[in-house]
C-alpha cells in the first residue's frame, strides 16, 4: 500500500479548483470501488479511477495531472451512471485533463495529438475531415504503419472523402475557437 503524507503534499487549492470546474463534491466519494469495477479501461490505466478519486481527496495534484489514466478515459459514463453517491466521475476525469493541458502535461501524447488534430480540422473547415485528421496525426507522431492494413479495407468502399466538406459558416466556427482562446488567456 502506498502512504501519502497529506500534511506535506495536500494541495487544497487544487481540490477546490476541480470541485468548482466539475460542480462535484470530492468528499462525497466513500471509496466503494464501483467505478473501478465497471470501468472497461482499468487494464490500461496506471491509476484505477477509484484511486484517482482518493488521490484527489488527498490533493495530489502533480501525481494526477501526470498520470496516463486521465488521457485514456473514453467518457463511457459507466462510473457516473453507477456511482451510488451520484458523483459525475467522468466529468471529473474530463476536468483533470483540462487542468493537465493547462499545466502542459500529456502522459499519453499520441492521444492528445489525435484530439488536437481533430479540433484543428474542425477549426479550419467547420466539420471534421477524416483523411486530413489522419494525415496530420501521422505527420506529428511519425506513426504510419499500425493502421496501414486498414487502407485496402476501407478505400475501395469509397467512404473516405479526399476533400473536406467546408461549410458556409466556417468563419463562425473559427470565431468560436478564437473567442474561446481569448477568454482563456484573460
Amino acid at each position, binding site marked *: 500500500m502506498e502512504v501519502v503524507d497529506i500534511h506535506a503534499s495536500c494541495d487544497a487549492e487544487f481540490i477546490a479548483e476541480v470541485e468548482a470546474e466539475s460542480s462535484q463534491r470530492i468528499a462525497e466519494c466513500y471509496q466503494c470501488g464501483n467505478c473501478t469495477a465497471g470501468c472497461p479501461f482499468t487494464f490500461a490505466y496506471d491509476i484505477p479511477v477509484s484511486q484517482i478519486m482518493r488521490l484527489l481527496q488527498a490533493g495530489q495534484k502533480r501525481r494526477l495531472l501526470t498520470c496516463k489514466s486521465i488521457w485514456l478515459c473514453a467518457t463511457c*459514463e459507466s462510473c457516473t451512471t453507477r456511482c451510488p453517491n451520484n458523483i459525475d466521475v467522468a466529468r471529473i476525469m474530463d476536468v483533470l*485533463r483540462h487542468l493537465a493541458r493547462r499545466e502542459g502535461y500529456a502522459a499519453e501524447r499520441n492521444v492528445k495529438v489525435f484530439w488536437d488534430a481533430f479540433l484543428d480540422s474542425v477549426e479550419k473547415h467547420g466539420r471534421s475531415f477524416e483523411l486530413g485528421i489522419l494525415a496530420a496525426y501521422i505527420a506529428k507522431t511519425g506513426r504510419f504503419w499500425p493502421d496501414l*492494413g486498414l487502407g485496402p479495407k476501407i478505400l475501395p468502399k469509397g467512404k473516405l472523402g479526399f476533400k473536406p466538406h467546408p461549410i458556409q*459558416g466556417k468563419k463562425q466556427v473559427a470565431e468560436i475557437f478564437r*473567442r474561446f482562446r481569448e477568454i482563456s488567456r484573460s
Partner: protein
Amino acid sequence: MSVYAYYPGCSGLGTSIEYDISTRAVCQALGLALADVPDWSCCGATPAHTVDHLLSSALAARNLAQAEDLDVQALITPCPSCLTNLKTAMHRMSDRDFRGKVNKLLDRPVRRDLPVKSVLQVLVEDVGPEELASRLPGKPLAGLKLAPYYGCIMNRPPELMRFDDHEHPTAMDRLMQTLGAEVVPFPLKVECCGASFGVARKDITARLSAKLLETAQDLGAHAMVTACPLCHMNLDLRQGQAASVAGRQFRIPVFYYTQLIAVALRLPQDAIGLSKLCVSPNSAFKAMRKALRP
C-alpha cells in the same frame, strides 16, 4: 407528417455514410420528414470536451441556433456522440450564467430550448413497433440471429439521456424483433468498444472490441447490430485487429439497425448501403435462409 430537424454528424458524410443513407430512407418510408440543420457544423465530438466544457458546448450550440430557423418540434441525430454533445450543451445551458458564456462565443445566440433526441428514440416512441410491423411484408428477417449492441452513451448517463434502460436497453431489440429477427441475450449491450482510441491506442480498442465480438460469436449470433458510427468502425473496419488480439477468427457482419429496417422494408439497395460494410453481410443472410429451411 411530422417534421424533425436532422443533424447527420460528420461521420455521416464519410465513414458511416451507409448509416446516414439508410436512416434517411427509413425515416422517409415511415413518414418522418427530415429537414437538415442549415449549414450544420461539427458538434465537437470527444476531442472538444476533453479540452474545455465551454468550448464543447459552444461548438454543439451553434447547431442548436442554426436549427431555430426550422419549424420543427425536435432535433434528431443518428449518432450517439453528437447526441450526447447536443444534449449536454442544452442541459448545461439551463444554467443562465453558462448560457450567457456560451452565447458570447457564438455569432448567433441560442434562444430556444429545442428537444434533442436520437433517431432511435423517435422510431421507437413516435413511430413504434406496431406501426413498423404494419408496413412490413410479414416477418422478413425471420431466422436471423442478432447481438444488439447499443454502445456506452446512447442511454448514459440516464439523467441526461432520458431514454430506455441504462443497463439493459431494449429499444433496438424491439425493433429487430418486429422485423422477425431473433435477438440473443447479449450481456455487453452498453460496454465500451474502445471509442475513439482506435488511432492513438489501437491495442486498447482491439481488446475491448474483441470481447464484444467473442461474446456475440459464442452466443451464436449471425451478426451484430449497432446504432453508433464509432462502435461500428471498431467492430467492422477494425475486426481484423480485434481478431489478432483475441487469437481467433471473426467473421461477424456488423449492421446499422437502420440498414436492417431498410432491408425488411424492401427499400432499394442504394438506400441501404450494404456494399459499404467491410465485413460482408452475406454470411448472415445465408444463415438466415438456412435457418428457415425445413
